[in-house]
């Protein structure tokens, strides 16, 4: 394992401290743990809390800021934070209108957030949550854990954050978050795995000429393995799955070409070049595009494509002001 770290045990804490030190006017770390909150608490609006395992930087700490999250709770790399940590975060930002937690659909995250929300409710805090499950690589059925939450989560932060900033009540913020979840889909791939520092070994092995399709964001293997193909062909494979899942025809969308951590922007732009043409050819109108590292998987090389179907409300909230370290509008 080759990494620029000091010690495996200190990765998360030093990373969070470094993030906060880079944005001292905007962010603050709670002394009780790896919990990032806005430097100044904003009262009178629904507070948004998200989080999950570390290793997805800039998610989620980088999305704390005006128009987005109020708090992000970071667990160990790829492992959900514990209920007491999440509860500390909820308590720190809780307001009279309440708290909405944005949880990615992983058993660990869901169980830990549920326990934390129970703790908050016991203390009289109004709290609710939504579960993001945008990954079309995974089959969604009543009998499984369901689809994973991946890069589409950023758009839930953005849009629910804007709605909360407008002063909407808890149920309205939750409703718009669920609207985003219903309309956002993502699929990813990797050409190189990543190594969890505490583990020291990569999550899977790939030969020089292989790629893994349908990967998540935790270094776990994907749905299947193929011979490495050209960028356009790979992007087409992902887009076909996404477009087959919900109907995008004639609709306006926001696109995210998300890097998994070790993918050069050069390659992401090459992918985007094809994605834009492909969508145009399939009568999907691109309203806006984001290209960059938003939801990473440490040093995994690969990318994901996210499409969000927009309506007038979602467009307004997507365009609203945001001032988080990793997303400015």
């Amino acid at each position, binding site marked *: 394992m080759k990494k620029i770290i000091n010690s495996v045990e200190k990765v998360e804490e030093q990373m969070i401290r470094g993030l906060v030190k880079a944005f001292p006017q905007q962010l603050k770390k709670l002394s009780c743990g790896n919990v990032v909150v806005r430097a100044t608490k904003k009262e009178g609006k629904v507070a948004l809390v998200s989080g999950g*395992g570390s290793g997805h930087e800039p998610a989620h700490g980088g999305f704390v800021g005006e128009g987005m999250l109020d708090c992000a709770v970071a*667990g*160990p790399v*790829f*492992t*959900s*934070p*514990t*209920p*007491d*940590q999440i509860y500390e975060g909820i308590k720190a930002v809780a307001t009279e209108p309440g708290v909405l937690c944005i949880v990615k659909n*992983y*058993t*660990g995250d869901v*169980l*830990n957030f*549920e*326990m934390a929300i129970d703790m908050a409710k016991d203390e009289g805090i109004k709290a609710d949550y939504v579960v993001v499950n945008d990954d079309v*690589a*995974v*089959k969604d059925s009543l*009998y*499984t*854990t369901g689809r*994973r939450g991946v890069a589409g989560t950023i758009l839930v932060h953005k849009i629910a954050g804007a709605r909360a900033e407008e002063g909407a009540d808890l149920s309205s913020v939750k409703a718009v978050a669920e609207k985003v979840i219903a309309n956002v889909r993502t699929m990813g791939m990797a050409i190189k795995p990543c190594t*969890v520092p*505490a*583990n020291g*070994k990569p*999550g*899977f092995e790939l030969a020089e000429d292989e790629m893994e399709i349908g990967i*998540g964001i*935790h*270094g*776990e*293997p994907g*749905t299947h393995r193929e011979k490495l193909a050209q960028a356009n062909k790979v992007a087409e494979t992902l887009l076909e799955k996404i477009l087959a899942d919900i109907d995008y025809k004639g609709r306006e969308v926001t696109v995210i070409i998300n890097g998994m951590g070790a993918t050069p922007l050069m390659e992401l732009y090459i992918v985007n070049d094809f994605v834009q043409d492909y969508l145009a050819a399939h009568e999907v109108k691109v309203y806006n595009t984001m290209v960059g590292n938003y939801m990473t998987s440490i040093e995994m090389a690969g990318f994901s494509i996210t499409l969000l179907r927009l309506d007038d409300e979602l467009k307004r909230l997507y365009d609203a002001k945001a001032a988080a370290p990793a997303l400015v509008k």
Partner: protein
Amino acid sequence: MMTLDSKKMIKIFNNIASKVEEEKAFLTELDTAIGDGDHGINLARGFHAVAEKLSQMEEDDDTGSVLKTVGMQLVSTVGGASGPLYGTAFMKAGAVSKGKRELDAVGFLAAFEAAVDGVKMRGKAVPGEKTMLDALCPACDALKISIAGGDDLKTAVWKAVEAAEKGVAFTKTIIATKGRASYLGERSLGHQDPGATSSLLMLRVIAESL
């Protein structure tokens, strides 16, 4: 009659902590195959904290409060799916053991049943989904039958271990429909479930320590 008091219980948890540390790499390897490779790391972190907490705890002869302390410590240190699941399990076991200075076979069974119900409640899973329940549920059934048949606690726990071993082997033959491994679909076949394996490890330590 063979019983389990809080002193013996604390010793068992110390033994579990050592065992989990010993098997950390193995559990993590199992989780790398069908999960995200953190199960051993998560549990080792948690039981290390449990052992430390128990060593600082003032002498307490209530088995319920030992179990509750273990549960709360796991919830706040393990993370992942197994943290809330094992944490809830020991907290529920603690709740039904509250005020008991020692657990006899019947008391142990009550605690074990409460623990398994806790896992089912929190994780909304049933046996056959390739989770820790595939070790815990058969173990619980075996425990019940053995105790009803008049076996002493140690014998009953060994029978539970045997049942859990079969349960762990069974997880190799089924597709995961809960937890991270469910993302793999058919690809989860042939691999044994990390959580079921850690449950078996713990049970075996209990049997050996009794």
